[in-house]
């Protein structure tokens, strides 16, 4: 089933979906397993697994450090692909890879799609690959039925959103604000107008991320977006309170759902 269809089905009996993020191999694959188990148990709808890269230019300090620490521990792309396969097999929710283009490019675009499809991965988020930079990538995405997730931002013009929409599938990732991952966002009137523009530009489900931390943030998105994305916050939580803290935190986030 396509990622879009899976998400739409899940949305039928929920006010809003939740996607969470982990950095593979940080602090260890063992902890990744524990964290993902907690996420799935508590009703997370979709998980993006970041394959670490040495130059994560779009990530803020928390995820940057997680990338570097994971690589310092020796995390390889092969291990990440294997871990993805294990998760997709074990749990009945869609898993995505998030990484930077060089990881895919160096592995070989076709080979990477082949490996991701074999692992049961439903989508790819590559923040430094604008569609015009690799027609091949988007061709393979169709061939292997893996959704290339494209990104709208508050600086995107209506024309740009329309152009991106032509290449994306699965859902559109709407970045809530300027900046990198992990800083606080303001969900004000300007933000609502921006989400309306996003909605107008695409028929795909809208996921909103960057700076979402608590139940209040999620409630503010109900009716405006289809899915909320929690990124740096769960990493902060695992860093400060351990893997077990993730379940209760997510349960509280989704209490109104």
């Amino acid at each position, binding site marked *: 089933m396509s990622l879009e269809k899976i998400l739409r089905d899940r949305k039928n009996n929920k006010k809003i979906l939740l996607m969470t993020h982990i950095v593979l191999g940080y602090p260890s694959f063992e902890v990744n397993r524990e964290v993902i188990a907690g996420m799935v148990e508590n009703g997370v709808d979709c998980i993006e697994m970041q394959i670490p*890269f*040495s*130059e*994560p*230019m*779009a990530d*803020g300090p928390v995820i*940057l*450090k997680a990338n*570097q620490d994971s*690589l310092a521990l020796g995390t*390889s*792309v092969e291990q990440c692909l294997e871990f993805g396969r294990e998760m997709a097999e074990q749990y009945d929710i869609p898993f995505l890879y998030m990484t*930077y*283009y*060089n*990881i895919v*490019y*160096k*592995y070989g675009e076709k080979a990477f799609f082949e490996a991701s499809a074999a692992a049961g991965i439903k989508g790819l988020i590559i*923040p*430094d*690959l*604008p569609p*015009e*930079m690799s027609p091949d990538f988007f061709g393979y995405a169709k061939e292997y039925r893996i959704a290339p997730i*494209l*990104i*709208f*931002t*508050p*600086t*995107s*013009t209506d024309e*740009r959103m329309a152009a*991106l929409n032509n290449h994306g599938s699965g859902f559109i990732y709407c*970045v809530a604000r*300027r*900046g*990198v991952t992990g*800083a606080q966002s303001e969900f004000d009137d300007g933000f609502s107008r921006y989400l309306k523009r996003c909605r107008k530009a695409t028929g795909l489900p809208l996921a909103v991320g960057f700076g979402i931390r608590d139940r209040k943030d999620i409630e503010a998105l109900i009716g405006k977006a289809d899915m909320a994305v929690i990124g740096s916050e769960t990493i902060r939580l695992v860093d400060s309170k351990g893997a077990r803290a993730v379940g209760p935190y997510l349960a509280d986030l989704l209490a109104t759902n």
Partner: protein
Amino acid sequence: MNKQGFFGNWGGSYIPEILNRTFERLREEYDRARNDPAFWQDYTNLMSTYSCRPTPLTFAENLTNHFGGAKIYIKREDLNHTGAHKANNVMGQGLLVKRMGKKRVIAETGAGQHGMATATMAAKFGFECTIYMGEVDVLRQRPNVFWMEKMGAEVVPVKDGNRTLKDAINEAFRDWVSHVDSTHYVFGTACGPAPFPEMVSWFQSIIGREATEQILAMHGRPPARVYGCVGGGSNAMGIFQGFLGNEETELVGVEAGGRGLDSGLHAARLSGTDASPGVAQGYKTMFLQNDDGQMLETHSVAAGLDYVGVSPILADLWERKKVRFESATDGEVIEALDLTMKLEGIIPALESAHGFVQAFKEAGDLSSDDAIIINQSGRGDKDIFTIADAFDDPSWKEFIIERAEQYKTNS
């Protein structure tokens, strides 16, 4: 450059979506400036009144006699204001920033020369200025940090990754995506997403334009070879553009051989065999990376050459065999520097000294009717701490210890 910003197989613009509009505007403004003859006129006026352009071409008579071959000429970019070719690019971008109406500039810096030039430009044009610099480079280029701060710039030491140039670039990009509306990122070299490689090379082409005329006036015909050190590649692109397509002249780019190409401790992307095609920091080029695509640590005695990638324009010229690439080791660099100081009274930057090394290796093989040009991209006095260490200079050490004691007693 084609429409997507590629030079052959290299270049492009692999940027986060948040920067899309900013790059569109930058491309528009750059195209307008390029098509406006008055812009280049303003630029050269500025460079001849605020900096020291045209910079001289110096005939190095003693070095020529020493090697007994080709006549050695040195293009003196060290005599630019702020002491390096970096000023050319920065002042050009400063004029663009004024046209775009932005009020804040940011920059990365390795050796500190680009940061220094940017801080200078910001002071002159009245922009706010933040400079990102790897913590390792902050330590080895302390005098430049001092001057940047004195000119009103904020210098932010970057503590991630290898804490050198590429990490400073990542951090500058992070700042830029957070402040796209107010801020221009003054990229320091002919790398990064389009249009930076071409735009920076355009501003630097002033070096080659002058050198072409100067060598004709002094030598009567084009040089046999032109040497330039290659970190990101902006000074080499600058001088090479004066001679590209000229069959008589061979262009030679010299990379950091560090402790030797077999040691793994170098920054040889095009002259060695350790690099492979990749995409990072917004562009496609030959990167020093492992099989997974993770960037490797690089090493050079010269902070400005210590970088994992290289200009996509140079990667294209390398692939089409229009430029030959060589490398110089840290040790060879210090020897060439020593000789140049003793024989000519000229102090090249450690970066520039890489070009001197290769020129010295080859000068003797050429005829005395031939001329060669070495691009001296910057002056070496900024490297006083590193050079003093390399020479293990006893009187300098004594001085530093005494000065430290004085500070301790007075505080």
